[in-house]
């Protein structure tokens, strides 16, 4: 089976600091793969490399068997929009835009906001924040912001979801609700690559990679 995302012997070096050395991992469909490790162990950098947002110092990155490191930025960005959704740490939303406008941001580069408006509403409903669609980020709780950001990552129906510390800053109930949502997405066939040190998320994952 072809992996959704595969890192082959990647190294990530910033100046004199080596974040990852000859690291390999693969993400299969319908799988939650958790990258665990203490703070500062390089989990976010590994996710950035997997998402094509950053080139590794060495090694290769494959999406569905194709290397993405030699693609132009325009082509890679276009491919990324179709292939994967990215949920950043803390569920950062753009101030001045409502929840539903934030969800529609990935549709802006391709001018598909009108076409995807009803999907945005559906996603907010699926994640239990439909009643907050027209509220601004500062009017939302941490858990609601995280779910709006998750809806944004899912807008373009990606086959891969990359999530960075999705439960950080949430109370247990909200954190478990997000973990449940990720498990549900995996059971729908999406490959989920998560960086976390939340034990509940780590133990729920089908595959784990621990960074030293």
């Amino acid at each position, binding site marked *: 089976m072809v992996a959704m995302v595969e890192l082959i012997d990647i190294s990530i070096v910033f100046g004199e600091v080596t974040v990852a050395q000859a690291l390999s991992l693969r993400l299969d469909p319908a799988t939650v793969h958790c990258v665990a490790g203490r703070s500062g162990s390089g989990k976010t950098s590994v996710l950035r490399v997997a998402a094509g*947002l950053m080139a590794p110092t060495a090694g290769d990155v494959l999406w569905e068997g194709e290397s993405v490191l030699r693609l132009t930025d325009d082509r890679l960005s276009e491919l990324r929009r179709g292939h994967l959704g990215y949920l*950043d740490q803390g569920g950062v939303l753009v*101030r001045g835009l409502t929840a539903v406008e934030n969800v529609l941001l990935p549709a802006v580069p391709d001018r598909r906001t009108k076409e995807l408006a009803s999907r945005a509403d559906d996603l907010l409903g699926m994640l239990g924040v439909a009643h907050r669609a027209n509220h601004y980020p500062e009017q939302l709780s941490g858990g609601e912001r995280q779910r709006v950001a998750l809806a944004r990552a899912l807008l373009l129906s990606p086959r891969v979801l990359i999530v960075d510390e999705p439960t950080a800053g949430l109370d247990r109930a909200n954190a478990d609700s997000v973990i449940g949502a990720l498990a549900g997405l995996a059971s729908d066939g999406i490959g989920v690559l998560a960086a976390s040190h939340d034990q509940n998320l780590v133990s729920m994952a089908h595959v784990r990679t621990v960074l030293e």
Partner: protein
Amino acid sequence: MRLGLILGEVGSGLRRNVSMVISVVLVTFISLTFVGAAILLQMQIGQMKDYWYDRAQVAVYMCTDLDTTGTCTQSEATKTQIDAVEAQLKSPALAPYIKKYEYETHDQAYTNFQEQLADNPIASFVTPETLNESFRVNLVDPTEADILIESLSGSPGVQEVRDQRSYLDRIFAVLNAASYTAIGVAALMLVAAVLLIATTIRLSAFSRRRELGIMRLVGASNRFIQTPFILEGVFAALIGSILASVAIVAIVQFFVQGYLTRALQSTTTLVGLGDALVVVPILIAVGAALAAASAGVAISRYLKV
């Protein structure tokens, strides 16, 4: 590419940094005005060289009773010596290089001298006998004066053979120095403009860094994110370029073609509106290219997430 969205972002960036944008406009305006002035000055020098070099003669001064330089021994050049020089000018060795020549007598030299230095006190002390008689030679190619100088210098009765272009070269050296000074000032001002544009765009990007990071994460390309910022810099620089272009056209129209043409009358040709209109697209292209490059570099650090 999503023109409305991009223009909206450009407008909001310009409103947010209005004082910086005004600085960019002013610095670009002044620097490009200097660039335009330097280009026009170079054009003027080129035109003057064409005009004057074409008219510059080689003067073969014959001895007077007072001269002790050259082959002169305080005695007037004899008719034989004058005829010998003329024969050399007509000889097959020199004739191909000569377009025409004429002989200027003491009286003609005196008349010309009085005309040219009418307001100078020295004019009242000069008598016809103190001014050299001379052959005034126009060459086919004015740059080949050395041939004439080498052939005739030292001939009996010849005091000096002088290429008048040597006088012009001094004038052109001064004009060139002025032109290079303008280029130097323009270069410094352009550096200031580039740095100011970069700072403005950095400030603009810094205030929107959160949105930029999110747009990268949701799949926007670098080009999509960079474009509004680059247009913001280019827009400000373009206003400066257009102001500089207007200034250059106004300088040529009102100062050069108006004041200078009246003051100098028809003694030389001056740059005209046609020359100014050649400079305008250069200024606009330089302004836009520098702003785009500067803004592109400034924004790049905010594209990393």
